[in-house]
């Protein structure tokens, strides 16, 4: 599924300074019963966000009007656990286009890149600075510049560069996905497959 191109994103950010946020928290299994990719944002962080009677939990950050924005800043080892792409869909569908963390779980990171959410891995020190900046001023803006691979705390102009491979960067900049690429090399794949032993 194609997604919007990503170039420079300047936005306030939502802080979630918890470590090992797993995909069961991002979207609990009981919300994986859909056969279409629709409405997952409503259940993002469902059990942290709502009580059993569906009333919002006042102390959870997504229910706190002080914080908003298109960037989610998570603690270390964000997205561990299951391969469910629904977790990345929920993040996207809620309105986030970028997740910043000092460390991502592999599959979640790959899933994000495949659907147009940019995972930005920063040093633990820089992540702390971002958390501190948001705490000091919830309206502080973060700029994520994909062409230059740079993330900046706008108020203080402190910045750090981040990694992304050239291929994925190109995809994000152009809104392409891997299937577009693979479709174009189908003959090569077929020739290869015909000679493979298994």
């Amino acid at each position, binding site marked *: 599924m194609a997604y919007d191109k990503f170039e420079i994103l300047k936005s306030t950010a939502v802080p979630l300074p918890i470590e090992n946020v797993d995909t*069961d928290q991002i979207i609990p299994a009981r919300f994986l019963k859909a056969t279409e990719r629709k409405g997952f944002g409503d259940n993002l962080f469902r059990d942290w966000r709502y009580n059993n009677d569906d009333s919002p939990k006042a102390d959870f950050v997504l229910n706190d009007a002080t914080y908003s924005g298109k960037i989610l800043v998570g603690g270390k080892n964000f997205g561990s656990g*299951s391969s469910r792409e629904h977790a990345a869909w929920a993040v996207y569908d809620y309105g986030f286009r970028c997740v910043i963390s000092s460390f991502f779980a592999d599959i979640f990171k790959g*899933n994000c890149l495949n659907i147009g959410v940019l995972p930005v891995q920063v040093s633990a020190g820089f992540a702390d600075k971002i958390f501190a900046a948001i705490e000091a001023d919830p309206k502080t803006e973060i700029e994520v510049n994909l062409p230059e691979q740079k993330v900046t705390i706008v108020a203080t102009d402190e910045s750090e560069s981040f990694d992304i491979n050239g291929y994925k960067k190109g995809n994000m900049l152009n809104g392409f996905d891997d299937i577009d690429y693979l479709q174009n090399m189908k003959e090569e794949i077929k020739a290869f497959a015909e000679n493979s032993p298994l």
Partner: protein
Amino acid sequence: MSKTLFDKVWDSHVVRSVEDGPDVLLIDRHMVHEVTSPVAFLGIKNRGIGVLYPNKTFATADHNTPTINQHLPVQDPLSANQLKALEQNAAEHGISHWGLGHEKNGIVHVVGPEYGITQPGATIVCGDSHTSTHGAFGAIAFGIGTSEVEMVLATQCIMQPKPKKMRINVKGDLNFGVTPKDVALYIISKLTTSGATGYFVEYAGEVFENMTMEGRMTVCNLSIEMGARGGMIAPDEKTFEYIKGREHTPKGAAWDKAMEYWKTLKTDPDATFDKELTFEASDIEPMITYGTNPGMGIGISKSIPNAKDVQGGETTYKKSLGYMNFNEGEDMIGKPIDFVFIGSCTNGRIEDFRAFASIIKGRKKADNVTAWLVPGSHKVEAAIKEEGILDIIHESGFELREPGCSACLAMNDDKVPAGKLAVSTSNRNFEGRQGPGSRTLLASPLMAAAAAVTGKVTDPRELMNK
């Protein structure tokens, strides 16, 4: 050039290496289930393309299926809808489909090996992170997201950067009462849940050489819980013995030819790894988890660590213990429990039920315990009956359910109620994993059996004959 087992399999599947990008990897076997595939099938439909090699994809229903009364219509309309979608998608594209009630039905990572779909040297993917299970056969197997499921359907390839390589050695002989599950939980407790992120693991050393194929599957299954993409073990005589004669394994001359290739599948003596770790088997005792990720595990005789002694954030640690309603310094032994779950792709094979039966035999289920015994597949279920294990189960006051993922992820009705404590042979103890508010202790089938008959956390060695 010297190569590791992982290099040999990976490199031989690279169709193209994209400059400053991932490898295009050919996939030999693709397993799909009802939960992570519908959107992928919808994706190829919207693009107006078909499935390139339908005979390389296999479908089974497991995540969302009931484990009682499978012969009746599925009650939950959303679950029924997903099952129907899988059936229709499989039929439309000519994919073999082992749906609910089919004799080959079961958990995707249990049936794959049972029918010889899983083979050494193959690349195997599935939209489920525990696909790493199949690495026990010397395959490269890992979980993928739905976009990648769509890629495999459309092009039989995915695009992945080659992971780094790690070897984990466990030397010596295991202590009495220590199972493959304990070995895995021990390693994860040492590495933490992110200790192997970015790596593909090879397990080596006497402990894995001496392990049964079922045990190796349990270990490889849990690779993802330390963050690894997957784990694998070099195929040996045990592997070949296990797969020989199964429905999808090569026969006759094709078998001989395959064997020639499979015998080359081991790490060259001078090949190097990006990281190498070694543990002593004698240090491992039966393990249990006490927190909300699989890295929070301890030997059964130990007490819950203090916040200041653990790696990572103190706030996160305290939040986790708060959720579990446990305190620092407490013993695990003696904690009253409410539920026992034996099953899942981690410990839902015949050997796991044999272990469970060895402890419950001649004892009775504790009154305070609700137990869910869920075989990984119909084949496992049949073996349980054939070997007389079902009689032991009934005599001890337990019942056997029908195959499926069940309380491993609690998508169906098998949900542990809020606040209740479960000893579970599955793979994840995340908050709410087994139902909203549920509390999970991960352990081996022996530990689960000991808890089921005593009603509390018990060292299984006390109930075993040396």
